[in-house]
């Protein structure tokens, strides 16, 4: 499958996320949209990682070079990054959900438009 498909899918996911963040007022939905954007990026990272890996192995095979460890590992940084993002996202979720809970306890609502006191 060409890389373009992955890019378009991840762009679609990311755009949905942005639109969701911009238009929805429910804090939990906004939260989910943020997760959506993060995962769009994750998807893209994995796709590019695989693409580079495949290209490196194919180039080595074409030139009849021995397939070394280094060539096999090409592009693996992208996948490692994905794990990082997942860990950070998980941490973020715990903090974010805690905030939402506190917010609900205080104003009995999860509507972000009530939270316009940031300027004070």
């Amino acid at each position: 499958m060409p890389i373009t498909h992955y890019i378009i899918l991840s762009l679609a996911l990311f755009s949905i996320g942005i639109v969701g963040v911009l238009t929805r007022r429910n804090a939990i939905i906004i939260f989910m949209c943020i997760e959506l954007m993060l995962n769009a990026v994750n998807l893209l990272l994995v796709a590019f990682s695989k693409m580079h890996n495949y290209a490196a192995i194919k180039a080595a095979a074409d030139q009849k070079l021995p397939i070394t460890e280094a060539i096999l590992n090409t592009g693996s940084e992208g996948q490692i990054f994905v794990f990082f993002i997942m860990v950070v996202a998980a941490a973020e979720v715990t903090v974010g959900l805690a905030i939402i809970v506190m917010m609900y306890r205080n104003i009995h609502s999860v509507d972000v438009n009530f939270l316009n006191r940031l300027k004070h």
Partner: protein
Amino acid sequence: MKNALNIVYLIPLLPLVGFLINGLLRKHLSKSMISVVGCGTILVSFALSIVMFLQVKNGDGGTIEYFNFISVGELTIPFAFQIDQLSSLFLLIITGVGFLIHVYSTSYMQEEKPEHFGRYFSYLNLFVFSMLLLVMGANYVIMFIGWEGVGLCSYLLIGYWFKNNEYNKAANKAFVMNRIGDLAFLIAIFWIIAKTGGVNYGEVFAFAPKLSGTDATIITLLLFVGAAGKSAQIPLYTWLPDAMAGPTPVSALIHAATMVTAGIYMIARSNVLYSLSEVSMNVVAIVGLATALLAATIALKQNDIKKVLAYSTVSQLGYMFLALGVGAYSAGVFHVMTHAFFKALLFLAAGSVIHAMSGEQDIRNMGGLSKKIRITFITFLIGCIAIAGIPPFSGFFSKDAILLNALLVDSHDGSFSIKGIILYGVALFTALLTAFYMFRLLFITFSGTFRGTEEQKHHIHESPAPMTIPLIILAVLSIIGGLIGIPDAIVKGGDKFTEFLSPVIAQRAGHPVSHSTEYMLMGLSTVLVGITIIVAWRQYRNYKRKEATGFAKVLEDKWYVDEFYEKIIVKPLHNFGGFLKNVFEKLVVDGLVNGVGRMVNYGGRQFRLLQSGQVGSYVLLMVLSMVIIFLVQFFLRK
């Protein structure tokens, strides 16, 4: 004696030390200590100057370099002193006459408070220091430092009694008018650097023949404007009479030993450059002569004893410039020397008169003083005879040399050119005016009956010895000072002065006149001066006070030159300043400054609306910004 040049730096250094001691410790030293320091430093400098002079006379002058003062690119300006015939002569005049004036001051300023007394002497010492620097410098830059120094000191001393606002104005006037000349001098220095690549006299004069005619003319004219400012020539002369606001010994110092002779020194020093430009020479001669005549006419009707002497100085300086302009540099310098003697004498004697009259300066309130202050009278009389030019007093020889050289200008075969005859005629007429106003001053002051108040009459007394002894010494010098420059016609080889200066001053290649002609000219001027004195005597021996009318009134009011300058220059400048202050400052400058403030204020108020506190709007802006950055990156990046 060859080593004497090694200690030449002491000559200017001692007055500087005197300035520092008197200036810094003026509140702690007694008056007698201040006097000893002030006079002592100048006396030692004078002694050293004599040593230098003798050495130069034996042909052992030279240039001593101390350190590199300025070094920029290819231009190096050393801090160096040049001791040659011209500078050693000026050293003698400055320190010698300066010393006598210092001694005189110790008595004249006795009534001042100790701290002001110290201030006065520190200024005097600084004045002498600056003037010494001016004449000793081996290049135009060192000369310029001294040049600025004397300008500053004249300001300080003219405004010495700073509580009187009129005196402060006179000091300002002197300073500002000098600045005009100084600017021209500075431009001339830059021009010299640009064209010759150096400022040392030796280099510049060696390069001079390669200068184009225009460059030589521009440089010399600019130098002349500088000299006109310092030496009080048309159109920058009006500060000098106003400089009378200072104490009388200061006037003597400014008029005789320092300051005003700086311009003459500078042109005499640059004689190589001037000889290259016919135009500049003519300008110098004509301006000098015009100044001499104008100032002499003004002096005819002045009633302040110091003002008469001041205009007489302006007039005599004009004479010197005439000499320089016709190429008779050594005659000009000779007149500087004799003038230093008799003008210092006249000023100090006038100071003695003022002292006797308890501060009165108006000669209409004097009269009949000759019997009461005998020494002052006799010395003043000697000064008058010397300045009038009666043989064998000093003024006669120098004035005669100038007159003869003026007559001989452009003369190659012994006949006189029309230009020469006109210059001679006007100069001779000015000499007669000089004799007339000086003897008018003498007769009104010293003969007839006393016209002041009873209290003044009771108080009249001869000045103490520290004042009379300098007078007597200067009187002797005024009598015999001219004998070193006796023209060849009288004593063969008698003109020792010109001979002495010949290594540094180019001699004019004129055709000498026959001795009989010279005798005739001398006789003519002497007889005419004698007649003038008799006329003055008949008219003024019994002076009655009367108001000046008609033309005399114009002369008394100094041809209204000050009023003319006031209208033409001062008023418009003042109005321009007012325009800048009231209109330009308020509208443009203030407008700009306030405008910046108002703009920031307005911008802040508008941008504040963005901070709504709505998280949604923040996120929207963030996304929009990101999109913009992305687009910029995507489309504009090469």
